[in-house]
């Protein structure tokens, strides 16, 4: 993000703990308007924990500001109303309801007229969902479920979409499709905070990146620089045969 630009999401000195174990320690990050930011890191680095805490699912100690307002004390539902949306790792779809109902509920907090526009937009982004709109969410393929989870989150017209491992368990061709869609979101004015183990794909579409390890950010910068960084390449992109430990 350019200095001077006011951040859409700004987290400073965030700590998240499970009991006495701190899973996230003193983390600060910012996401600007129309920006795609990614957090990369190994399994268990604390990425999902951080995202869940930003959404309000887990308690967070520190400051979280969204569009200039302090949201650290708000309930999940109020953060949704403020324009923050999370596509969680397990998608949390309404499995025994059809695609259309899932999407309609995504627009639970917004006016009916806006919801109609959201439907058009989501069906344009994911034509597959339109074909399957009467099918039960639980019977969709993994890729379609991911599309539905993203579609449902977009129905509420969020300003920031947080994606937790959207490529998890999907076929490479589907992953490419999903990442292309994430890239398209920027054009429609949605910022994205993306968590990925597939660092290569994430760094390709992101503007900036944070590298997380054992609950802390060890590196951040423009995605291009991170992609060419020796340590990152060694640990996450698998370019060097002899990985130097960064722990």
């Amino acid at each position, binding site marked *: 993000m350019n200095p001077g630009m006011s951040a859409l999401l700004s987290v400073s000195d965030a700590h998240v703990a499970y009991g006495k174990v701190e899973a996230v320690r003193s983390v600060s990050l910012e996401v600007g308007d129309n920006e795609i930011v990614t957090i990369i890191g190994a399994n268990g680095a604390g990425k999902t924990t951080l995202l869940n805490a930003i959404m309000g699912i887990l308690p967070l100690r520190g400051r979280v500001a969204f569009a200039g307002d302090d949201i650290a004390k708000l309930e999940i539902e109020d953060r949704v109303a403020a324009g923050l949306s999370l596509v969680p790792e397990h998608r*949390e*779809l*309404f499995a025994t*309801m059809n695609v259309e109902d899932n999407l309609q*509920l995504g627009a639970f*907090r917004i006016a009916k007229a806006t919801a109609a526009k959201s439907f058009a937009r989501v069906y344009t982004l994911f034509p597959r969902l339109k074909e399957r709109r009467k099918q039960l969410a639980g019977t969709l393929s993994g890729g379609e479920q991911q599309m539905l989870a993203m579609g449902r989150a977009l129905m509420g017209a969020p300003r920031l979409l947080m994606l937790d491992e959207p490529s998890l368990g999907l076929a490479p061709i589907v992953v490419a499709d999903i990442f292309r869609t994430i890239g398209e979101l920027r054009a429609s004015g949605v910022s994205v905070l993306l968590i990925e183990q597939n660092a290569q794909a994430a760094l390709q579409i992101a503007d900036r990146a944070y590298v997380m390890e054992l609950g802390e950010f060890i590196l951040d910068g423009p995605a291009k620089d991170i992609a060419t960084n020796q340590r990152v390449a060694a640990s996450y992109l698998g370019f060097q045969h002899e990985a130097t430990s960064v722990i």
Partner: protein
Amino acid sequence: MNTTIMLFLVQDGITNGAIYALLGLALVLVFAVTRVILIPQGEFVTYGALTYASLSSGQVPGTARLAVAMGIVAFCLDLFAGRRSLHPRLVGRAFAINIILPVVIFALTSWLAGRHPPIAVNIALSLSIVAAIGVFLYRIVFQPLAHTSVLVLLIASVGCHLALQGFGLVFFGAEGQRGPTIADVAFTLGPLRFTGQSITVYAITIAFIVGLWLFFGLTLYGKALRATAINRLGARLVGIRTTLSGQIAFLLASVIGAISGILIVPITTLYYDTGFLIGLKGFIAAIIGGLVSYPLTAVAALVVGTVEAFSSFYASNFKEVIVFTLIIPVLLLRSLAAPAVEEEKD
């Protein structure tokens, strides 16, 4: 046994079964949305029935005062919960729902009692009093416990049942009451005599089932309630408040309970503690439906009603025993089908 007696028993069983079906559906709904096993459902039946009976005999029922008192407690809880950000709008809304609404119902009740309003007015008043009690019960007891385990919720539920039953004794006394019938007509079809009351029971049960089906299938709030039942986190992530779903579930359950009470109080004498037993039979139907299936619950309720009718004819001393014994083979079968059920993690 001859065919006439059998037809009578089946008819009786279906009339009772229809009531159990309503109660069973309410139990399934409340459990799916809030994980509360609603033991006080029976008290909603009693309160509905006896409030209606008191109003019909021109008395002001104590339940109207209880609703006001619970509203005041709910208002204080709302203020306490929102103490960090007390917008005038928030306070105004809480005041309107928790204070003005029950006070208006109370004022209307006191003003109309003794003026012999039409039956429909008495029914509407009874329903709104019990509905208010149901919603406030959720706000006061279950909303603060929403994050706890099913066991804690069950214990709280038993506590509510005992408390409400005690209040019932204070309000209505130990004597049984009966209310006026809703429809006095009757006609005969072959050997069977259909009273207006039993027709009303069927009609209202069917209307409620169809109404609930439309509500859950077509309306946004109905879908939101289902969504909460299917995936609580998913529902919160699209902005559906768990508390809103809980309130709607309790509202529906208390109205259904009260309706059931009003439907049976002209047929049977109801005491302050009769509702519990009626609620338990709805509970058996709900258990047979696994606390998840609405159609299975409705069918099971009809079976429970029929078994009850036949056992009261053949072995009236063992009527309740036979009905409640139904649950043992069902639980046995269920435990064989699904050996281990882990409690949902929260």
